[in-house]
C-alpha cells in the first residue's frame, strides 16, 4: 500500500466508525457531534483524492453551516433521550436492509473495479472555476435560483403567522 492508501484507510475507518455511531447513538446532540466527525473525514477524503476545492467547500458548507443549522433545530425541538425514544421497532429489519445493501455494493464494486487505481492529479482551482463558469454556467444559475427559492420557502414556513 502507498502512503496515500494508508492515509485514506485511516480516514475511511474513522469516518465509518463515526457514521455508525451517528446512526446508533442514544443522544441527539452526540449524534450531531458524530456527524461533524463524519463530514470532516469526508472532507479529508476529498483532499487525499486531490479534489481541493470540493474538500474546502465541504468544510465550509457542511461542517460550518449545516451542522449549526441541525444543532439549532435540536435546540428548538424537545427531544427525549434513550434508545426507545429515538429508534423505532423496526431496528432489526433496518439493520438487515443496511447490511444487505452494504454487502451487495461491496461485491458489485469489487467485481467491477477490483484492480483499478486512481492516479491522483491534484485539481487546480482555476480548472474548477473555468468548468463552472464556462461549461456549466446554466446549471450553476439554475442552482442559485433553486437556493433562493429554498431560502424564501424556509422563511415562509418557519416564521410565526401574523396575530399569533
Amino acid at each position, binding site marked *: 500500500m502507498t502512503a496515500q492508501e494508508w492515509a485514506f484507510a485511516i480516514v475511511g475507518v474513522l469516518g465509518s466508525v463515526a457514521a455508525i455511531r451517528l446512526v446508533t447513538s442514544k443522544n441527539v446532540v452526540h449524534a450531531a457531534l458524530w*456527524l461533524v466527525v463524519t463530514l470532516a473525514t469526508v472532507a479529508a477524503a476529498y483532499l487525499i483524492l486531490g479534489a481541493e476545492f470540493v474538500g474546502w467547500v465541504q468544510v465550509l458548507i457542511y461542517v460550518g453551516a449545516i451542522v449549526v443549522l441541525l444543532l439549532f433545530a435540536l435546540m428548538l*425541538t424537545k427531544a427525549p433521550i434513550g434508545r426507545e425514544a429515538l429508534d423505532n421497532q423496526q431496528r432489526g429489519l*433496518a439493520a438487515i436492509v443496511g447490511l444487505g445493501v452494504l454487502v451487495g455494493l461491496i461485491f458489485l464494486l469489487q467485481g467491477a473495479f477490483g484492480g483499478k487505481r486512481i492516479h491522483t492529479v491534484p485539481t487546480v482551482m482555476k480548472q474548477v472555476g473555468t468548468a463552472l463558469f464556462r461549461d456549466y454556467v446554466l446549471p450553476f444559475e439554475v442552482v442559485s435560483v433553486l437556493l433562493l427559492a429554498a431560502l424564501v420557502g424556509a422563511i415562509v414556513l418557519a416564521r410565526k403567522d401574523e396575530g399569533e
Partner: protein
Amino acid sequence: MIRLVFPLFFAAILFSAGIYGVLARRNAVLVLMSIELMLNAVNVNLVAFSQYLHQLTGQIFALFVITVAAGEIGIGLAIVILIYRNRETIDVDEVDLLKW
C-alpha cells in the same frame, strides 16, 4: 496512487449507515442527518470517479449536490420546526396525517 475501491467502499459504508438511520430513527432531525450521510456517500463516489477519469464533471456535480443538500436541509428543518410547533412532537411515527 489509490485503489479505486477504497473511496467506493467508504461511500458504501456511509450509504448503508444512512439507510439504517433513515429506516430506524424516529426523531425527524436524526432522519435528516442520515439523509445528509447518504448524499455525502454519493459525493464521495462522484469525486472518486472524477479523479479516476481525469474529468471535472464529477466534482462540479458534487458541488451541485452540496448546494441542493443545503437547500434541502433548510426546507426540511423549517418543516420540522413547523410540525413541532403544531403537534409538540417531531416523532415521524406519530406524524401520520396523510396515512389512510
